[in-house]
């Protein structure tokens, strides 16, 4: 693999890396036919981000044709390559990224002004594939705004604030800080902003509802969006299903998929425009081995895609999704079972005092090659992973 980034794109790449560092500690690198994918996920699997840089982003882009290569490395090491963004802009002329598979090293070579050469040889580990599956275009609520609007909105919240709640109606979006259920309501300071639909480039609401998600991760995306000036799009359906934030231009696409708190009765607004009736989500009791009811609830966030196997039907009882069988066979099934491991990380024991109940995201262990991975859901795939590989993913 050998890629070359020149001029201002070096800073864009650096910003993407810094942005991903707000999500997780590891950077997953996967050179694909359709571009270089850089991904990160947090330890609880409730936030995932992916930047895909198309071959045109690079002045040279060659990837191994014969085999797929994936690796992961500590994101701090990659940040060290692009440490000072201000000097990057002024001094770096181009950046070569080369893979040395024999030595398990990824080499970043920065050609700088004054004939200075900076070479970083970073060691990596092989990694499993990391992929969240989501279909943003079929989401009920879709928005697009200039980054400035969102930056100016989040600036009102203290950096210590963990979560924000976004509520939408036909013409308005409210953004406010989320206060823990247990906290004394009368003492907490509430900050709420209201944005009108005409402040957005695109504002389309089908479900009037509210979602609550982690602000820190949103800020991570805004750091990138603000510096590149790209508009930010936001997609979500309902509380419990992930919210997708993305930035796109002709040569890159960044997607941040964040889990949202599952429904909080105090915030639920009526689905006056709800096109489909959903069965009420089951109690979040992920300790239950029977994941049928969980899958039924999750079903609504994935729309039928162009795959050959067709859409899953809500009652998935026939696919006998017990945990053990999910991984042992090669039967065609949806990928969601892989999520089991992540589910166990959730603190969803109903015996505990009410606490956050984040839905985890979906990760396919195996991806079909060279598909439009970012936007199309993978409906059916061979499960080739064994139990032990699942455990690795859950760490």
């Amino acid at each position, binding site marked *: 693999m050998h890629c070359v980034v020149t001029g201002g794109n070096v800073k864009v790449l650096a910003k993407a890396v810094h942005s991903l560092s707000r999500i997780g500690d590891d950077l997953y690198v996967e050179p694909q036919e359709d571009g270089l994918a850089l991904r990160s996920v947090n330890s609880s699997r409730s936030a995932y981000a992916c930047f895909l840089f198309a071959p045109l982003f690079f002045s040279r882009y060659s990837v191994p044709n014969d085999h797929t290569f994936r690796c992961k*490395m*500590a994101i*701090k*090491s990659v940040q*060290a390559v692009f*440490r*000072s963004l201000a*000097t990057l802009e002024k*001094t770096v002329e181009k950046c070569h990224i080369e893979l040395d598979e024999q030595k398990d*090293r990824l080499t970043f070579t920065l050609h700088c002004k*004054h*004939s*200075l*050469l*900076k*070479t*970083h*040889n*970073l*060691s990596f580990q092989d990694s499993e594939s990391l992929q969240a599956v989501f279909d943003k275009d079929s989401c009920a609520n879709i928005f697009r705004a200039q980054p400035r609007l969102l930056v100016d909105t989040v600036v009102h919240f203290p950096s210590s604030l963990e979560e924000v709640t976004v509520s939408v109606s036909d013409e308005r979006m409210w953004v406010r800080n989320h206060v823990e259920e247990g906290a004394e309501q009368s003492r907490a300071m509430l900050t709420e902003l209201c944005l009108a639909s005409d402040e957005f480039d695109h504002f389309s609401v089908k479900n009037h509802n509210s979602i609550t998600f982690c602000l820190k991760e949103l800020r991570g995306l805004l750091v990138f969006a603000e510096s590149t000036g790209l508009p930010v799009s936001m997609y979500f359906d309902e509380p419990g299903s992930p919210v997708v934030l993305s930035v796109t231009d002709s040569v890159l696409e960044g997607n941040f998929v964040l889990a949202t708190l599952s429904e909080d009765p105090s915030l639920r607004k009526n689905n006056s425009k709800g096109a489909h009736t959903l069965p009420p989500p089951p109690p979040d009791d992920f300790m239950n081995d029977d994941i049928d009811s969980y899958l039924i609830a999750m079903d609504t966030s994935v729309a039928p895609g162009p795959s050959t196997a067709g859409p899953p039907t809500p009652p998935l009882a026939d696919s006998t999704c017990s945990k053990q069988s999910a991984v042992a066979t090669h039967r065609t099934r949806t990928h969601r079972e892989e999520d089991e491991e992540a589910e166990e990380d959730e603190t969803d024991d109903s015996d505990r005092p009410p606490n956050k109940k984040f839905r985890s995201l979906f990760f396919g262990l195996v991806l079909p090659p060279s598909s439009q991975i970012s936007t199309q859901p993978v409906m059916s795939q061979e499960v080739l992973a064994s139990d032990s590989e699942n455990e690795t993913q859950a760490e």
Partner: protein
Amino acid sequence: MPLSTQSQADDEQYVLIASLDNARHLSNILKAITFKDHAIFTATPNGLKVTVEDSKCLQANAFIQAEIFQEYTIKEDLGFQINLTVLLDCLNIFGGSTVPGVSTALRMCYRGYGYPLTLFLEEAGVVTVCKINTQEPDEPIDFEFCSNNVTNKVILQSESLKDAFSELDMTSEVLQITMSPSQPYFRLSTFGNSGNAHYDYSKDSDMMELFRCTKTQTNKYKMSLLKPSTKALALSCKVSVRTDSRGFLSLQYLVRNDDGQICFVEYYCCPNEEVEED
């Protein structure tokens, strides 16, 4: 200047009197070598030399020539050991504000062996007198670094090295310096937790003012010893890097103060025992 109201008689007893209109010309230079509490002060008719050492492997010297001082009177060569941190605190006793036109004036006096170093500091009409105890000076290490033994020498504009030094991977225990008449010419390398990094300066670079390398040499130095030199680098406009046949390293920094006067700071460092590359 208010400080000159001291009587002539008082002055007779001093072995050293050195005055500066702007104490910062001294304190800034001293900051470049303050990685240990104690320093050896040596004064000759040529000027002041302040020496700081670490583990017998590293020595930093700051030279402030007599010409820098508005007044410099010395009766005999002298030396003492003093707490550098305390000295710096005193020099900055007025808070070290950077309001233009306002500076702290300094008059430094020393009566001789056993006496404290007396500092008269004045800013905006307020005078402070500080007396800092002195100790018997230790013998500074003689690294026996002489120009005849220098195998490789480069002079670089500090600008280019500053970035490299500020980015150095601190998880690396060593800083490896390679100097060679052929590629990579001048290379700084680190070996840290996540991998290794190399900073290569070509001999044709416009930052390279002098390139005189006679043979390929690679030496490793303890990162913890060299890291303090970053302060001196930050103040300087040029740096000369020399290694001798034993692999001892000499870094010399040319520091220009606000008035355009030149001072020097130098660092000497012993190489680590092994010389083979990883």
